[in-house]
């Protein structure tokens, strides 16, 4: 079937089998490999993307769900002044060592950006609860939580400018 959607701001039309998962479509057909497949059982959250602004697990989403929708992947995150700049949340993860091996990071970032957008006055408890569906096997989460808090503050500051 043919589906049309907006991918990271660009109109996109693809031919897909309805049995294609969005994570597969992104990685194998569209060669956007920033979205990772970790557990492939909708538990780890490495594959989180934003579907119409809401973070969902792309390994458990069939491609037909994209038709007419707006999709944002990790490749679509960018800083306030352009695509060659890190997003404030990415900058915060770098600054605060919010990653070690980095495999879970794309999903962490997508969930974190959505959390900060949804609730600008995030508390640490909100962050820990909000990251429940994102698993990291390196960091013990401490620096991830610190990064998300800092990233959320940076996003707020950028909004205020």
């Amino acid at each position: 079937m043919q589906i049309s959607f907006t991918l990271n701001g660009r109109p996109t039309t693809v031919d897909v089998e309805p049995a294609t998962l969005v994570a597969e479509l992104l990685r194998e057909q569209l060669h956007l490999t920033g979205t990772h497949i970790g557990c492939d059982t909708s538990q780890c959250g490495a594959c989180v993307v934003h579907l119409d602004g809401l973070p969902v697990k792309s390994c458990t989403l069939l491609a037909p769900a994209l038709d007419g929708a707006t999709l944002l992947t990790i490749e679509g995150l960018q800083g306030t002044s352009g695509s060659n700049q890190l997003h404030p949340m990415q900058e915060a993860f770098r600054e605060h060592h919010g990653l070690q091996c980095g495999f879970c990071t794309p999903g962490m970032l997508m969930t974190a950006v959505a959390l900060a957008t949804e609730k600008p006055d995030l508390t640490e408890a909100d962050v820990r609860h909000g990251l429940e569906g994102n698993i990291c096997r390196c960091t013990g989460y401490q620096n991830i939580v610190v990064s998300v808090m800092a990233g959320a503050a940076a996003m707020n500051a950028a909004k205020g400018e």
Partner: protein
Amino acid sequence: MKLFAYHQPDQIPDAAKLLTSIEDSKLVAGGMTLIPTLKQRLASPVALVDLSKLGNLKGITDDGATITIGAMTPHAVVAASKLVQSKIPGLAALASMIGDPAVRRRGTIGGSVANNDPAADYPAGVLGLGAGIVTSTREIAADKFFLGLFETALEPSEIITAIRFPVPLKAGYAKFKAPASRYALVGVFVAKFADGVRLAVTGAGSGVFRVPPMEAALSQNFDPSAIAAIKIDTDGLTSDIHAEADYRAHLVTIMAKRAVDAALS
């Protein structure tokens, strides 16, 4: 995943017709259970009938003595609904405990109830509140709907359109979750109405069930102490890698007390 045809009808009768005319076809709502099942090849339907384009299946309405939740309403919407939070806070709390945030954005109440997973949360809320399951053809009382392991009273072409919940005086849910899957190892929903108390247990057996001795005790005295000494028979309870039947039986009493506490708070 095996290949399948994909249909996106925009009318309920069309969806029902597709479901009956295509052998081995399946409905897909949010897909949070079905897609993992397809990926593991535990099911390989020849066609999926997607309910997302049907109108009027999303949203929550206040009918006074009841509130009605459209079948395609995601868990996150129920959890965040001011209406549900004010009228049945225990149900909003239940919805907020399902899976994780991303799963709650896609998973739907109709899908959860139709699937009747023995460890799912919603069946406890639906049975505990004595809700009505509104379908394309009729309304089914919760007490007649859940028939055990993944089985319901739904006919093959019948589609859930909404769940109608009576508004209780008080209600609460408590869940001991399996940490990896976040399903209920044991979950208990309790609801106090003017004419008595209902209490439903999920996760402990092959399907959701009520506990009449606890209901009777709580009808006399709606306090955790009223049920502290009531033990559950381990006959028919699940024993698996996560917990033995006697541990689950123990947890039923603990979770029931916590659910009453939650209802009172």
